[in-house]
């Protein structure tokens, strides 16, 4: 199972290497070679086949990106488990644990876009990141955990048996960033359980018979993907959803209205990670476009969408303070609102520049189900 992706990556490199200097006869200006591939990226300037999209290649490359992104969550949750233990044993300080907590959330952020397949079937959206939490389910579930013995609190299996609110990143955040609350040893149990979830998610995708195999077996007998283009469509829709999540939920909730912003409706307001999460999710989406869709999107559309991604990420930086603080100040409120508009613009540009390149239909039919 592990050999295949490496092999295909090698093949890709080889193709890219040889094709960098490719040229074809130029019908409009005979004698002048027409470059087809970018020297810099090795990718073709135009969508191959001019409208014939290679969905098998897209799937192969997207799965490589997913393998990396889900793999990173496995790595970071392992490091978080180690960091929690060290912190609770007193061999490292709180700052080191908080730094690793941040890295873990940044590894989760891109996965938030992929609410299909293993995340959906394992119910991981809520166990990893119970949010929005209008009714303080996280606080209530944590009370149940803190009422247990120290030994039980440190046991991932005990945490796994509690309601979703106690299992995820917001639970660790509440324990770590609330004055007067002792995070140890509960953070050890929660981190260990998070790592178990991360491994299950990666296995759900990439173990034998996992979701990746299901996508690879697209065809008339496949219960989910009737042909290879359907996986492309699901991935594209997921990226679109990720941008909606940022604009409507991650930014829309704290923005509220100009008269009544909701600073505590910002995700991760306690730790102040709100802005970083948005950037990490944007970068995750961009990674799928850049390395997954890659050369199946025409060069001019691709370079334009990278520019818009860059501008959008720049807008996050220009806010200057965490979103939860920014929305309480009229000047910076406008900057948060500007970011929201920019993300909506990016989504519109994706629909105009990227979707059509991939042959992704925006129409709908009864076959969508409900």
């Amino acid at each position, binding site marked *: 199972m592990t050999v295949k992706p490496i092999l295909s990556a090698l093949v890709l490199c080889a193709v890219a290497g040889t094709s960098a200097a490719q040229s074809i006869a130029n019908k409009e200006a005979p004698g002048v070679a027409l470059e087809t591939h970018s020297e810099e990226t090795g990718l073709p300037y135009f969508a191959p086949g001019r409208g014939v999209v290679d969905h098998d290649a897209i799937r192969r490359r997207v799965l490589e990106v997913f393998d990396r992104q889900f793999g990173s969550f496995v790595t970071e949750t392992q490091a978080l488990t180690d960091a929690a233990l060290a912190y609770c044993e007193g061999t490292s300080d709180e700052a080191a644990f908080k730094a690793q907590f941040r890295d873990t959330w940044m590894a989760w952020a891109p996965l938030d876009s992929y*609410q*299909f397949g293993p*995340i*959906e*079937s*394992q*119910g991981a*959206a*809520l166990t990893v990141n119970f949010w*929005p939490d*209008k*009714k303080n389910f996280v606080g209530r579930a944590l009370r149940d955990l803190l009422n247990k013995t120290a030994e039980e609190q440190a046991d991932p299996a005990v945490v796994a048996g509690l309601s979703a609110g106690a299992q995820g990143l917001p639970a660790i955040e509440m324990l770590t960033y609330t004055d007067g609350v002792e995070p140890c040893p509960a953070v050890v149990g929660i981190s260990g359980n998070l790592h178990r979830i991360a491994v299950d998610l990666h296995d759900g995708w990439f173990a034998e*018979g996992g979701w990746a195999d*299901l996508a690879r077996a697209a065809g008339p*007998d496949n*219960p*989910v993907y*009737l042909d290879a283009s359907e996986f492309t469509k699901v991935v594209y829709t997921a990226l679109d*959803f990720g941008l*909606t*999540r940022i604009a*409507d*939920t991650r930014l829309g909730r704290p923005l509220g209205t100009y008269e009544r912003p909701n600073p505590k409706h910002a995700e991760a307001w306690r730790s102040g990670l709100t802005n970083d999460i948005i950037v990490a999710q944007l970068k995750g989406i961009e990674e799928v476009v850049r390395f997954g869709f890659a050369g199946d999107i025409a060069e001019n559309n691709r370079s334009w969408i990278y520019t818009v991604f860059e501008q959008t990420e720049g807008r996050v930086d220009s806010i200057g303070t965490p979103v939860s603080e920014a929305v309480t100040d009229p000047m910076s409120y406008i900057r948060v609102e500007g970011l929201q508009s920019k993300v909506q613009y990016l989504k519109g540009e994706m629909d105009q520049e990227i979707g059509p390149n991939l042959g992704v239909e*925006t*129409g*709908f*039919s*009864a*076959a*969508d*189900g*409900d």
Partner: protein
Amino acid sequence: MKRRHFLISGAAGAALSMARPSWAMAGAPAYLTAASKEGNSTWLVGLTEQGDVVFELPIPSRGHAAAAHPFLAEAVAFARRPGRFAVVLDCATGSEIARLDSPEGRHFYGHGAFTADGKLLLTTENAYDVPDGRLGVWDAEDGYKRIGELPSGGIGPHEMIRLADGSFAVANGGMQTHPDYDRAVLNIPSMKPNLTYLDAQGEIVDQVEPPADMRLNSIRHIAADDTGRVVIALQWQGNPLTAVPLMASHRRGEDLAFFDHPETVRLKQYAGSIAISADGSEIAVTGPKGGHVLFFDGQTGAPINGRALPEASGVAQFGDRFAITLAGGLLEGGASGGKMLDVAGGYSWDNHLVSIRRV
């Protein structure tokens, strides 16, 4: 909340109804369905049994199912989940009678049913922050004003129907969703669908759950015969490679009965709509994702056969057989074959075909 009294109503409404047009005045459509056309414009369409379009009325966004008033030419077109609006249309004049906005913290699932006297409309709703399933109660005699809500008896109530005796059956699909997560299911590891019965006053009187191995088989779309037997189109949320039946039936006081079919695999784990023929001899189950329809014996539940029908989606009674919406028009027939009626207009049908005389 004295919900017991919601659905008990006097006889005062008859006079009010006199001034409002009947179905005959709306071109006597036999069926209602939501549809879209090129450019993603969205419509509620009235069809005769001959496949003629007697009206097409624009609706604000993609529709799912509709509820037809028992005798007035009024139809409620529901937005597709997680929709926040439903439009009540006067199908004789095409005018909008009312627009239902789901209250704060609720959204529609896309189905609803009128009480037998036509005075109240019930809508399946998601109280997504609780999370819990609700039935919104709207007063059809007072401009469709919302007057309260009832528990649906489970998470994710989807289709609800009125039974022949005026009571109701609700398919609580068990799937927890939240508008912040679009259409993703959030509770697959713990989901528990059920079929809930409410009396004509809206009180829950009975519930049945699937056995453990069928826990991930969402009970979503239902139909019933005059004896109160309910048939169910299921949607499997477990491992997509597991072969499971997608049709079940239930009679109160008994367990759920599941019925396999050699062509179930063609439905791609997703049964869309279901109907029992008027003579009770056949059951039709559509599979819009797989483009396939299964026919079962109406009495025994034994498989008869199946047919590949692209985008086969809505199904309702037609004579002693069925009318089925599919790409390009309507198919009228059953297991032994049928007649394809082309419907002009370039419609792409949405999920359900609602029979007006039998709602």
